[in-house]
Each structure stands twice: as C-alpha cells, then as structure tokens.
C-alpha cells in the first residue's frame, strides 16, 4: 500500500491490493503486477499448505523426504492421480465433470496386462499408445453423448462409470494380472528414476506441462475457459463448443488411459478394485487446487498441486501421529475449506467492486 509501489503517481493515488479490480488500467509495473498475481493465487496458497505438510512430517520423521525411498515415494505416488486430476481439471473448466476416469483407468490397466500376456514381445511404447488410444475412445464416447446429446455430463459419466468397469470385469472374468505376467522392463518403468526423479513422475510432469502450456497459450485452451465461463455466450460467439467439449473429454479419457498403463507398471498387479473411487479424488484434487466446479477458472497447475497434497497428506498422517484412517476426513475438510475460502474471497471482491463503482 505504500507509494513506492506506484510508477506513475497520480493525485488520487490510492493503490490497494484491490488494484487489479479497478476498471481503469493498473498503475503497477508489469513485474509487480505479475508478482501480486502470483502471491494472490490459489496455487501458491495450496502449495504453501503442501510445503507445510512436508516440513511437519519431515521434522517428525527424517525419512519422510530425506531418504531414498522417501524422496522417491514423495514424487512417485501422486503421479497417477496427477494425470487424472489434469484431465479432470480440463473437463471441469468447461463446466462438465468426468466421473468415468476410474473405470477407464481400470480398463486400460487390465488391457496393459492382457497385451503383455498375449504378446510378450510387444514394445512398451506400443502398449502405452494403445492405452492412450483406448482411453481417448472411451472419452470420445462420453464427449459425444454430452456434446451432442445435450445431457449433463454428471449423468452420462455416471452411466459410463458403471458400463466401463462392468466391461473390464466381464472381460477379465476371474483372471487378474500379476507382476509375473509383465516384462521386467515394464515394471521398471514404474520404479526407475532419472537424476533422482522417478520416470513416472517425469511423464506426469511432461503431460502437465504440455496441457498447462496449451491451456494458457493456445486459442483452443482459452476457448475451453470461455465455454466454461458462459456456455450460452460461447455459442453466440461462434466458438466451436462441441468440438472443444469432445476434445476435453477425449483428453480426460486419454490421460485416464495412460494412468491405467502406469498403474500397472507401478503396482504390478491389476485387481478388480483398480481405480475404484479415484474419480472423486481427481475431482477433489482439482477443486482443492482452485478449479471452480462451475467452470471457467482455475489451472491444471493448481489441480496438480492438489493431487500432490491429497496423496502427501495420506502419507504424512502416520508420521504426524494420526492414524491414516483419518485421511479421508482430512481430505473432506480440505475440500470444504477450499470452496468456502473461495466463496469468502469472491464476496470480499464483489464488495470491493461495488465500493469502487461508487468512488469512480
């Protein structure tokens, strides 16, 4: 609030933190503006919570992060949820939701195992590509039903949640995939590290970076926000709403498909419970990370940090002396806290806006 913040002082100089909300152009320098944006962002606050959890857990138990396995697990465990949360965030940004991701993941996890059993020499890349593709097709089904059927995504993806898992379980019958069925190199994919960073994490981060970059810098990405912000206006505006919705669901499906393959690599077995209930965790990660459930705002970076936070809290609770049974309760409280906080901030902003109109 000091005058040193101001580059071009004006007579009625009254620069406040609410500066960004004023109608007239801001008087802050670009760097300062960028800095305030970051400081006020949801991503930063949730990141700080993550840091706090890690620091607390590490002071109680050094190995939480300062041990080979601790460090690796810290990075590795959230990777799969991170992929799902990224896809989910993109769908939620368009004011939809994809509840079928857990089932898609189960289906491709089993597919991975089946492929290796049927064709032991199949290259790993082909398997990953197949899973991406199958996931994309399943996502496309959701997308077509939502975009062309004009029916709510919640119902459609609830239906496909049942259908996809039913297909997986029927297909699998009573066989399950064991580590022994999978080639060693594939299993190593789930555990190998490059420069101290697990390969799976690198893959997840690469996906995150690409999607995040696309959403921020590509026309298509911005249109997703526009669609979520006001679907009717998007139609009036002439945006390719249906195509973009399809793309969002295909992306979510494809990432869930990839997550399925990586799940198999990481855990080595595929049982009937793969990904059961993980869809709600993915939604939770996005919501905690600041993606508004009614679309139009939020970033995949936030969703990714949300995924990290959820998984890390789960790991940290025992270190903090809390039985891990309470993990879900903590997650629930976090989600509620996140949305209530959003609402409180939004109300404060609305009040500021109203007042700024009176003074203008």
């Amino acid at each position: 609030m000091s005058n040193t913040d101001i580059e071009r002082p004006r007579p009625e100089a009254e620069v406040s933190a609410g500066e960004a909300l004023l109608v007239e152009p801001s008087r802050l320098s670009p760097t300062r503006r960028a800095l305030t944006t970051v400081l006020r962002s949801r991503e930063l606050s949730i990141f700080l919570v993550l840091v706090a959890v890690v620091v607390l857990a590490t002071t109680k138990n050094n190995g939480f992060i300062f041990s080979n396995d601790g460090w690796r697990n810290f990075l590795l465990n959230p990777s799969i949820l991170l992929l799902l949360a990224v896809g989910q965030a993109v769908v939620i940004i368009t004011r939809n939701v994809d509840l079928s991701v857990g089932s898609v993941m189960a289906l491709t996890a089993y597919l991975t195992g089946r492929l290796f059993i049927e064709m032991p020499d199949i290259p790993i890349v082909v398997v990953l590509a197949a899973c991406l593709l199958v996931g994309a097709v399943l996502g496309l089904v959701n997308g077509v039903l939502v975009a062309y059927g004009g029916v709510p995504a919640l119902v459609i993806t609830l239906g496909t949640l049942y259908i996809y898992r039913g297909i997986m379980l029927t297909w699998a019958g009573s066989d399950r995939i064991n580590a022994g069925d999978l080639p060693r190199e594939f299993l190593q994919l789930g555990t190998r590290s490059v420069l101290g960073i697990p390969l799976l994490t690198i893959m997840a981060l690469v996906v995150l970076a690409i999607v995040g970059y696309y959403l921020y810098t590509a026309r298509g990405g911005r249109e997703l926000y526009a669609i979520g912000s006001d679907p009717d206006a998007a139609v009036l505006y002439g945006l390719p709403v249906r195509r973009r919705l399809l793309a969002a669901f295909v992306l979510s499906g494809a990432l869930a498909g990839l997550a399925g393959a990586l799940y198999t690599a990481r855990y080595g077995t595929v049982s009937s419970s793969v990904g059961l209930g993980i869809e709600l965790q993915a939604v939770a990660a996005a919501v905690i990370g600041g993606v508004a459930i009614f679309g139009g705002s939020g970033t995949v970076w936030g969703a990714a940090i949300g995924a990290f936070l959820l998984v890390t809290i789960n790991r940290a609770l025992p270190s903090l002396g809390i039985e891990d049974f309470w993990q879900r309760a903590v997650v629930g409280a976090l989600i509620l806290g996140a949305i209530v906080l959003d609402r409180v901030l939004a109300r404060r902003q609305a009040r500021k806006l109203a007042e700024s109109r009176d003074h203008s």
Partner: protein
Amino acid sequence: ACGSDDDGGDSGSSGGDGGGSLSMTMLPKNLGNPYFDTSTAGAKEAADDLGAELEEVGPETASPDAQVSYINTVAQQGKDALILSANDPEALCDAIDEARSADVKVVTFDADTNPECRDLFVNQATAEGIASKQLELISEQIGGEGEIAILSAAANATNQNAWIDMMEKELADNPDYADIELVDTVYGDDDDQKSFDQTEALLQNHPDLKGIISPTTVGIAAAARYLSDSSSKGKVALTGLGTPNQMREYVENGTVESFALWNPSDLGALATYAAAALANGDISGEEGDSFEAGDLGEFTVDADGVVLLGEPFTFNADNIGDFDF
C-alpha cells in the same frame, strides 16, 4: 477316487433344480483373488469327481453385505450346499440361517463364521500351526532379533485375527523370541494398492524394521513387490502366506527367502467333498463323523464341526519350481 454317488443326490435336499445330481455354490470372499481362484479350481475338480454341479459366485470387493445377497440367492435357488469363505463371522449368520432353513448345507472354508451358524468348517491348518510357522520363518530370516511388523488383510478378518492373536501370545511366551519386538500391525484390506501403500508406510515409520509378516496372499505379494525395488530389499525380511505363482519372481530375485501356505486347491476340494457328504446325508457334522475326500484320503470331523486339512507347507527357492498354483 471313489465313484460319484449318484443316487444319494436327492436325499436330504429339497431337490435343487438339476434332476438328481447335487448342486452347490462356491462363494469366496471376493472374485479375482488368485488364492480363491485356485481353491475354486480344486473345488470344481472335486465336484466333477463327484458328478456334482458347482458354480462360483461372489462380490467384487470383500465385504460381508455383498456376500449376504449371494447367500440369499442360494436360499432362493434351494441349492444343496453352500461353500463359503466368510468376510465377517457375525454379519452373515442371519442370511446363513435362512439358507439352512431352506435345507442348504453350509460349509465354511478358509475363514469361518461363528460355529453355530454353519454345518462344518474346513480349516486349512490350525491357527497355532499357522502362527508358529510364520514366527519360525521370520525368526530364522532376521536372526532371532529385531523389530517386526504384520501386514494383515481387513482388520476384522476372522482367520487373520486369530493368527495374529496366536503370534502375539507366542512372541510373549516363547523365550526363543524374546529379542523380537512386534512394533506395528497394519491392514491392507486384501486390496493390492492399499497393501502396497501400507508396506511403504511401515518402512517409512519404522526405520529399524527387520521383518514383515503378511499372513494373506494379497498382502505378501504387494509387500514383496514394494520391497523388490526399494532400497530395503535384502535388509527387511518378508514372510507370510502366499501362493507360489505370485511369489515365484520374488523368491527367485531374493526379496523373499521363504513363505508358507497350504494348497488352496486341496482346501477347495476338501470343502467340496465335505459339503457333498453333508448334502448326501453321509455325515451330519457331528464330532467324530468321517468321510472320503477323493485323492486327499479320509477326514474326520473334530470338535466344533472343524475339519483340518493339515500343516502348512514352506516354499523356498529350492522347491518353488515344483508348484503351479
């Protein structure tokens, strides 16, 4: 093998659907569990041998309420016998009562209900036997001293809990184990990923851990997979109850030295023979009754309606190649 006992088929049963031959339902804790896949395979062979009809049904996740619906269905169908591994000792009793009043003979195997509820329990091994076997193995592997932990199935799994109680008692009483300390018991719910994560948590929270006992096939496989590529491989011993096919890789790569199990296929088969004997009226489930169980030989019903399969068998690098289940 003894021939199928065709004309005994409808005696004592309300007459199922098939004309004459016995019809039975196999209800494991959950489907897609390799251990139960093996026991069902054994049961099917025994059923073929008996000329009986056997069908496997079951829930996707191991919960008692899901099993109740299947028990109800068996009652509706008026099957001759139900062979069941119970997810809860109490919760199933009402449904089982109902099935028994519809003239269904109920044999539990692997995990028992309260003895009043069922006709017979086919026990894989005595709880004492299983508990002391596992302690013996872990003690051997960690050199008789250090911290150990248990990775179990669900916290209310009857058989696991019985074994854990026995182990605790023996650890306290047996001077051979005076230097072994049980520091934690965690539950993986027979869920693969959860067991995997629980293993990680154990290692993280107990840096001095020397050994893990996992008395459940899902748990030991998940723990072995975690250990096999963690830095604790070779430093933390792992034993418990597992199937050879699931564990082969880890025994061969040195993560696991040895583990124990009975033959689940034999267990399934014995349960089936017992169920058939009950349904045919050959036995009533009283202590001292005895029946033929095909290649397995003759078995006698002990106190509380328990039939014992035998002692658990130890698998290690030398013998694991001889088994395929």
